[in-house]
């Protein structure tokens, strides 16, 4: 008696699983990284929740598939498109309810899932295309003509130039810039007795004498946050600096990079790709305001509001790379740079204009920024990059003790 009942049940679960797998695959294509473990979890979750309504089904899958707040939007769109077909979800839901015998619908589910999957991919591309167009239209209407929507081609860099710069940047060793943390590690010259190791060491001699072991504070590299100006006036330098940021990201764990012209773009994930060319290509792809105007204050305001509290923890150093030539300087710039300065451990301003001897801070933007930075350095060639590396290490120690 039990066997004939069990067989169709398994088949139902199988169909449901198949659909969840398709959906997970679609999410993966949409950019949410999901392993097979998540799919198994999702199936278990749907079976556990015993889906009643579309909302419950939605939130059940959401609970398993979404691991970051930003992914919520992607999930929502994918869910809507995937289960767009009227009645399809209801059909799917009926699969989890063993009491309703609907073999006809079961048969229909398989081709339907294939169709929806196709529709999903087509639909997503379409939507993406529309969104890109939308952004372009918006920007033409709202942002001044100074903002050039062209994408700077990295191929413009001559091959010899690329090779030379890359090699030079790779040779740059960022010295160990470390700050003390509150974590302890074994240290022969430490001052705190490590009771655990002491006891273990003492046991070796049968406990007859106590062999004291010490702990000292552990140090680590603080996070670096780079804010790189990619406006037209900086165009000659941005490629080089991006290579530099990529090299730094590669060498250290916690580096967050942001590009700004008239808007702020987070390129941290793009720069984590191992290959510099791929990483830079990914950066270019994600930036829309390449070589346009500069809105330092607006970009900093966005950074302060949306990102500062998420990336400026644990004694972060901020590298602000800009020429400080703000298009419309006003009090806002001073206010935002002050707030940025107060929320990080150290603010270093790297300015390529410093290469000119007798440079004077005449521009209003520069005057606004200057009082609020801890350090003001030139950055226009490899020498200055090397000098920056040295400064990072020296300053790290000094500030580390103070912190």
């Amino acid at each position: 008696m039990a066997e004939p009942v069990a067989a169709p049940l398994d088949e139902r679960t199988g169909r449901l699983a198949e659909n969840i797998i398709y959906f997970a695959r679609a999410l993966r294509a949409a950019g949410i990284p999901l392993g097979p473990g998540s799919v198994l979890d999702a199936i278990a979750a749907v079976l556990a929740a015993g889906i009643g309504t579309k909302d419950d089904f939605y939130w059940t899958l959401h609970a398993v598939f979404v691991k970051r707040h930003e992914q919520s939007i992607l999930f929502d769109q994918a869910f809507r498109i995937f289960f767009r077909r009227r009645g399809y979800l209801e059909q799917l839901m009926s699969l989890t309810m063993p009491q309703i015998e609907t073999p006809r619908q079961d048969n229909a589910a398989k081709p339907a899932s294939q169709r929806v999957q196709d529709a999903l991919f087509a639909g997503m591309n379409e939507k993406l295309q529309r969104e890109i167009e939308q952004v372009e239209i918006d920007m033409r209407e709202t942002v001044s003509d100074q903002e050039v929507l062209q994408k700077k081609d990295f191929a413009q860099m001559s091959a010899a130039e690329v090779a030379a710069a890359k090699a030079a940047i790779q040779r740059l060793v960022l010295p160990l810039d470390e700050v003390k943390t509150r974590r302890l590690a074994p240290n022969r010259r430490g001052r705190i007795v490590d009771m655990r190791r002491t006891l273990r060491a003492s046991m070796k001699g049968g406990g007859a004498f106590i062999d004291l072991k010490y702990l000292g504070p552990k140090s680590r590299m603080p996070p670096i946050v780079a804010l790189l100006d990619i406006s037209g006036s900086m165009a000659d330098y941005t490629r080089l600096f991006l290579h530099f940021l990529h090299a730094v990201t590669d060498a250290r764990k916690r580096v967050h990079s942001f590009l700004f012209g008239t808007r702020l773009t987070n390129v941290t994930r793009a720069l984590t790709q191992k290959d510099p060319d791929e990483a830079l290509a990914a950066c270019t792809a994600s930036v829309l305001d390449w070589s346009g105007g500069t809105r330092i204050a607006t970009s900093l305001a966005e950074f302060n509001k949306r990102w500062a509290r998420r990336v400026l923890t644990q004694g972060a150093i901020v590298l602000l790379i800009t020429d400080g030539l703000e298009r419309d300087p006003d009090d806002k710039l001073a206010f935002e740079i002050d707030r940025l300065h107060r929320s990080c451990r150290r603010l270093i301003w790297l300015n390529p204009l410093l290469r000119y001897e007798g440079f004077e801070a005449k521009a209003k933007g520069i005057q606004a920024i200057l009082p609020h930075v801890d350090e003001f350095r030139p950055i226009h060639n490899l020498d200055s990059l090397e000098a920056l590396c040295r400064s990072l290490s020296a300053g790290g120690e000094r500030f580390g003790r103070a912190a």
Partner: protein
Amino acid sequence: MTQTVPASIDATLDLLSRGDYVGDRALATVLFLALKMGRPLFLEGEAGVGKTEIAKVLSQTLGRRLIRLQCYEGLDVAAAVYEWNYAAQMIAIRLAEAEGNVDRDRVEHDVFSEQFLIKRPLLQALEPDPAGPPVLLIDELDRTDEAFEAFLLEVLADFQVTIPEMGTVKAARPPIVIITSNRTREIHDALKRRCLYHWVGYPNAERELKIVRQKVPGINERLSREIVQFVQALRKEDLFKSPGVAETLDWATALSELDVVALDPATVSDTLGALLKYQDDIARIEGSKASELINQVRAELRAAE
């Protein structure tokens, strides 16, 4: 006293409301799944939206013990998982010597036994409890450094702790684990993968009104409406830090203590400190902006009637 785990999403919603927690269905769903599948629940959201409260309500309504681990930078195994009682170990070694016990392995085995173990929150949570598996709250995980997350992986995946000197301690029945984060940094994907994720957002006007009426008993009906509408309007403003539910409740309590029956610009400006915690934000809203918002709130409420 001990309650069993809810059997459906509706039952979970009931459970929350019995604990005076006004939750939405999305939260109830993820909570139900966490309980049913025995998975840790990772709650992320702005400060003051009631993340920690969820764990408290769970422990209270299910009649389970609440074990809280408040995270901070430098939190290590000795403070979070276990530590050996060194003083007692020393004495035990000396006693063994005095007795003329020279079997080193024997002494070492005796000294590193459960008797000399001081259990910290994570290990306590794995112990059997007569009231049922406890609720383990790992609060503000983003405050620790990445190194600590690694300690948690074993606990969260298998509900066990490995003590090198002793072996593995595994929970007979897994605890209910709630992890909260204010997102001052990103938590590693390896840890998130082991949990069910939920973003706790600001409540909508209707839910916030329910929360205010429940948590500030005896509050004037009209005042509570105005407060909620005002806060909702404030969240749409360009502020550095929008007020959370905790701030709404503080403000509602303050105004109700002051015997205010309706919002007026002067009172709002005087009590803004309960809602906004940054001077720039207060300066923005104080004065004319406050009265503008009040008028807007009044108009909205009139339109709704």
